[in-house]
């Protein structure tokens, strides 16, 4: 198992020694940096890396992410952010398979290293398209809960932010009455709130809403810094979902409680944080996949919600990035044909994949 420890010097031009995303700059563009197993487990066990990408990283003995321009741009902005001003919203957009999710994963690692509380939704369409069971909400009329998904998400949150939450020791600012007997008093630790949500699926969604509210207030009162990372944000404004009422009518995503919770968090009425969001054509049904651009993908409602935002395009590989990717595959012995390593072979791969990251990954795979 070939691993690069942080102290070892790396002479390959496609790798970099700099394992801390906070220090990633322009000269790291096109280079791979590796993420240790423990960090991977902490950040991504609840999702966040695309499935095939994750499997490939396991096959190739270690998660190595390529540092690319969109992520570098974001890191520069985040490093220079004035956290007293209202939160900035960044929208990553690009063709399906161009590397948005992996860029978000990079940012997540950055946030974790920078000591920010991570509010991470790995893939919104999972809640919209494949909910494991939506129940009508008790508290909010005409809205729907996601009991199972909320529990999963709370677990994911606590895994990602576990050590940080212990350190911060945030407390609730309100009383939450769950039922006649159950109650969370003011000043109780947030971990209690989270635990309650994880144990009681019935109240899990409302726990999530409460948690997000508390985090917002905590950020406002400078008790912590919050980084919101949401992949597939445009799915919140999808024209349909797979949830139906008894009369077979379709429930829109805007009628979910979770949607309300995250939309309130992504409003720019708070400070001391940052919101990084991605919009992808595959998050919408096939009717809305004509263009990858943010205005089209978000629709009128979504655009009005997010406006003003900073759009960041995630393009296909540049020539340097492409060669770096091929070098990586060659070094890992994933590209085994000697012809694939020649100039002609590279030109063929570049042409046939169109320098598109996902196409290249699929092209190079033996299956």
């Amino acid at each position: 198992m070939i691993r690069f420890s942080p102290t070892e010097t790396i002479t390959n031009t496609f790798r970099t020694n700099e394992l801390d995303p906070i220090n990633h700059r322009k000269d790291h563009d096109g280079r791979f940096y590796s993420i240790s197993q423990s960090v991977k487990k902490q950040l991504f066990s609840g999702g966040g890396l695309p499935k095939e990408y994750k499997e490939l990283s396991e096959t190739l003995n270690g998660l190595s992410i390529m540092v690319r321009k969109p992520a570098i741009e974001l890191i520069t902005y985040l490093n220079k952010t004035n956290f007293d001003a209202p939160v900035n919203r960044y929208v990553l957009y690009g063709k399906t398979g161009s590397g948005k999710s992996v860029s978000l994963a990079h940012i997540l690692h950055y946030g974790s290293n920078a000591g920010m509380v991570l509010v991470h939704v790995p893939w919104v369409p999972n809640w919209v398209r494949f909910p494991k069971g939506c129940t009508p909400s008790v508290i909010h009329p005409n809205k729907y809960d996601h009991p199972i998904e909320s529990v999963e998400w709370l677990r994911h949150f606590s895994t990602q932010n576990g050590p940080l939450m212990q350190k911060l020791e945030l407390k609730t600012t309100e009383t939450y009455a769950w039922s006649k007997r159950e109650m969370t008093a003011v000043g109780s630790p947030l971990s209690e709130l989270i635990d309650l949500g994880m144990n009681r699926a019935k109240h899990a969604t409302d726990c999530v809403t409460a948690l997000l509210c508390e985090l917002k207030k905590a950020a406002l009162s400078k008790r912590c810094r919050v980084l919101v990372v949401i992949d597939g944000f445009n799915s919140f404004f999808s024209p349909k979902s797979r949830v139906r009422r008894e009369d077979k009518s379709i429930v829109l995503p805007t009628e979910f409680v979770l949607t309300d919770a995250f939309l309130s968090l992504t409003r720019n009425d708070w400070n001391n944080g940052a919101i990084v969001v991605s919009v992808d054509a595959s998050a919408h049904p096939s009717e809305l996949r004509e263009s990858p651009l943010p205005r089209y993908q978000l629709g009128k409602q979504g655009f009005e919600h997010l406006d003003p935002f900073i759009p960041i395009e995630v393009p296909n590989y540049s020539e340097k990035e492409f060669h770096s990717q091929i070098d990586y595959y060659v070094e890992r012995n994933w590209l085994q044909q000697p012809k694939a390593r020649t100039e002609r072979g590279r030109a063929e791969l570049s042409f046939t994949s169109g320098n598109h990251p996902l196409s290249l990954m699929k092209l190079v795979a033996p299956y």
Partner: protein
Amino acid sequence: MAVLRELVVFPSKCFRGVRSYFFSAPLFQNGSLKLNESVSKDGHALDFEQSDTKKMSKAMKSYMERAKIHDNFIKQQLHEYNIGKRHLANMMGKDPEFFTQTDVDEAIRYLFPSGLFDPRARPMMKHPDEIYPKRKAAEFDVNGRPYHSLFYTSKPNYYTLMHDLAVKFKQLDRHEDKIISRGIQNQKPTELFLFGSEWIPKQKIENVLLESLTDAQYVNLIKTFERFSQHPYSVIEKDFIMQFRRQLAAQVEIQQVPELMRDESGRPYMTYNARRKTSNATVKVIGQGTGVISINETDIHFFQREQDKKQIIFPLQFSDMLGKVDVVATVDGCGTSAQSGAIRLGISMCLRSFVNAETIERMRLAGLLSFDPRTRERKKPGQAGARKKFTWKKR
């Protein structure tokens, strides 16, 4: 015109081309002449027929009659043809004395315009020798004695030819011996002159020899000819050999490779409209490029299947121009396979202007420069599809 109609033949079998090796004697005239001209010196016609018919068998007699009828028929046809030619010349306002066969053809094409596809099905007026198949001259005399020594082989002309080849071979050997004995060093045996021609097929040989051959006999004949033409001094008998060879279709004219054009920024480019099945592609290949490809304003992912992408990349990789030229293509019609095939042909044709002659030849051999003529086959009545039949019921 009524006269012409009789003459103008809507033909069945028309043999033309090879000059007959065996100059078949003008039909049966010899025999008939013999019959008719046997007039004794003292003037009164010998009652030849009467005395000889007793000796002639019935078979002989019927043969002679048939031959005579055919003879007369051909004579009649020839007469009509000549008269018809004169009429035609009159009609066309040309001089009847100098009215050639080409003029006749032109006149017929003008007077009887035909939309038929096969030239052999269209109306024609030709010399009877070209229309009616030749027959052998009388093979035996009135007494039944054959003229040809090899008559009883039943294929005298064929075996004569084989024997002639053998004789000529020996002659060439003797010639070679003479040359060697004289010690003439500078007279080197000449090369084969057979390039660009092939042996005439069996059907044509049969027309020349006026005999039908079995496949084995034809093969034997060609083998003998091959052996003969491989003799170092066979060039002496070149004329003889070339009688039995036909020129191959002239090499495809080397198409002029178009010159590169220049656009506003000075970059060279070439365009081509290519087709495949019913799809049309307009392809523009621009030099000094980096390998950017645009198909209907999208990138290579316009084609989702790998095989279609491979079709596009093939000419660029084959000619080593991948990454050196840009391609801009628009395509419509038919399906993905046809569209990618059309673009491939377009790219290949444009690349001719960018590469050297050797690469163009290699591309031609690889099949990149050939138009693919395959189209969808027609569905036939009585069948479910082009080839598929309805369920066959035994009873």
